């Protein structure tokens, strides 16, 4: 538990995962990372500006049509845009907060499930044996029909 909370802290501090990509991921070390269409920050800036302009236009459009609203609140100016924005910000902030409660290490389940002494999360029956084998007083010597007993046999039978 302590190690997982330590990991979580380091995740949040660094803002990214400290480990590198898994070995099987085909990363090209020679690849140029700045020649793509969306690698140009000016292009991104234009996209964002376009989005803001579209939002403004859509809000202004509220003045020019009838919403046929079923509820009064829908008729409020810019209701849907406002509601969408608040919903998403609230959603993300709430989800980030939930991470503190819900997040565990990546191997939270697997480190237990993959160990051989667990089946479907339950202990293997082999682990149900008594912690110490029951030691039997050896007071029946001389009465056995078979002669000297195999001591291993006795422990094998009584271990369950």
């Amino acid at each position: 538990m302590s190690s997982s909370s330590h990991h979580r802290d380091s995740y949040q501090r660094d803002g990214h995962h400290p480990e590198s990509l898994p070995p099987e991921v085909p990363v090209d070390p020679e690849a140029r990372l700045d020649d793509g269409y969306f690698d140009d920050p000016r292009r991104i800036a234009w996209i964002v500006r376009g989005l803001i302009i579209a939002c403004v236009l859509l809000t202004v459009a509220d003045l020019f049509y009838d919403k046929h609203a079923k509820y009064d609140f829908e008729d409020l100016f810019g209701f849907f845009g406002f509601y969408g924005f608040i919903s998403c910000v609230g959603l993300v902030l709430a989800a980030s907060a939930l991470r503190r409660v819900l997040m565990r290490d990546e191997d939270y389940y697997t480190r237990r499930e993959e160990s051989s002494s667990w089946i479907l999360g339950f202990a293997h029956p082999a682990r149900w044996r008594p912690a110490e084998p029951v030691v039997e007083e050896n007071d029946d010597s001389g009465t056995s029909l078979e002669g000297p007993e195999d001591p291993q046999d006795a422990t094998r039978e009584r271990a369950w």
Partner: protein
Amino acid sequence: MVSFASALPAWIPAWLPPGSLLILGALLLPLLRGRLLQGYLVALPVLSLGHLLLTPVFDPSAAVTWSVLGLELNPVRLDGLSRIFGLIFHLAALLGMIYALHLKSRLQHAAALIYTGSAIAAVLAGDLITLFIFWELTAISSVFLIWARRTSRARRAGLRYLVIQVASGVLLLAGAAVWQRATGSVEFGAIGLDGGGIAGLGGWLIFLAFGIKACFPFLHGWMQDAYPEATITGTVFLSGFTTKLAIYALARSFAGTDLLIPIGALMTAFPIFYAVIENDLRRVLAYSLNNQLGFMVVGIGIGTELALNGAAAHAFAHILYKALLFMSMGAVLLRAKTVNGSDLGGLYKSMPWTCAFCCIGAASISAFPLFSGFVTKSMILSAAAKEHHTLVYLVLLFASAGVFHHSGIKIPYFAFFAHDRGIRVKEAPFNMLLAMGLTAFLCIFVGVAPGLLYDLLPFGEGYHPYTTAHVITQLQLLLFSALAFVFLQKTGLYPPELRSVNLDVDGLYRRFAPAVLAPAGETLARTWARAAAGVQRTFSRLLALLKELYGPQSVLGEPWPTGRTTLLAALLLALYLVLYYFR
């Protein structure tokens, strides 16, 4: 309304449910290979679709009815509701098969054929017993799509999946038995939860069985657990059938059940919180699948014609765009070997077609105008507003914004854009691109020409999605959500993608229950072992005593000389003589 076929050709047996062609067809797979196998895999769903289209509408007086053990069974029942699900299931089977054509594994092909075929046959079942048989068959066949991943994670997830799916089947059978006892009928029709006494019990059992497969809150853990562990092509199949079969069953038996409205609203809302913080992008899609099911469940709960039409139409559109999204993430997994948001980025450079198709799927699930989600989801929202479920309406609006946020933006953004991590791969194989292209075309086609879909709906009520108010309010909702994403990214408030596990209800049986039950079980087993050892000791003491008395070394057991025996016999005879004298 599109009309139905008038009668089945004489050479097709009327008792053979559509879909059984796919199940039986799987038996021939071992004989085929190469191009022949590929052609066969595409031809089977097409032939089965023909079978469905030739099947006439159900007529109780003329239909095939089997009387088995005093139960009236109707193996084939086609009407407006079962037809639209049968149609979309065939489409999904065909598209999935094309997507999986590159696979050499006939195990997966066979599992997919049996799975899709039994889902189709289940939809067309007219009684609860036939439904139960195919309900279980979907569970048993689909688990191989998970196990075929051949990892230990997949093996365990598949086992958990199978246990829960079979539990749903057992509940269904129990419910059917109780229901038959109470009503004397096993018809797969309206059931509801209002029945008193034993009928009510039957209704609740069946409701629970459907609810497990429909991923009701707290019964949903199996889906997010198992679907992302399935094979690349397996997840595409899985996403389409099991849950939508449950949606169909709910629409058939529990339409207008008020309880479904809050259940559905909860389903639309809570998975999206998980989707925002989940790293495995196929698991994000599983959460958003759960969210989309919520819309349909609300529609079924409202139960008006518009709402039920909306639920059916949304299931139709949803199967397509969800399959498309899973296909694109499958292609990413195939090429980049990972679908973790924390590891991906910049793939639009290597996989431009997959990226474009993914964006179409994302626009469809987000319900952008001209894409399929818009023309179907708005029916459910309108129905909710019309019936004055104000709070539910607001929750659905919130979920609509949220689904755009995590499926519409997060999936394409973290897979294909975000930070380029230098992953350079080949574009997806041609058959995958073809399947994605066809599905993307259908997503747009349904969005642009919704009339054709509306004609297939069970209730003949028209609907007009493209009103000025609808288009503008929806665009406002979506673009402001996008603005929120930009705002959160720019301010650094957006949670980074982290390699992690988020606790969900499956944690109850994967960690919590074992943590509680395993020590209890161990204590019980230990006590038992001690008690058994005690009993064993007592018996061995008893045995020793008996040996002492009667054993070879004992007084009674030792061999006697002849003289002593003779003397004893003489004494006994003398005693007898004395006794005889006194008689």
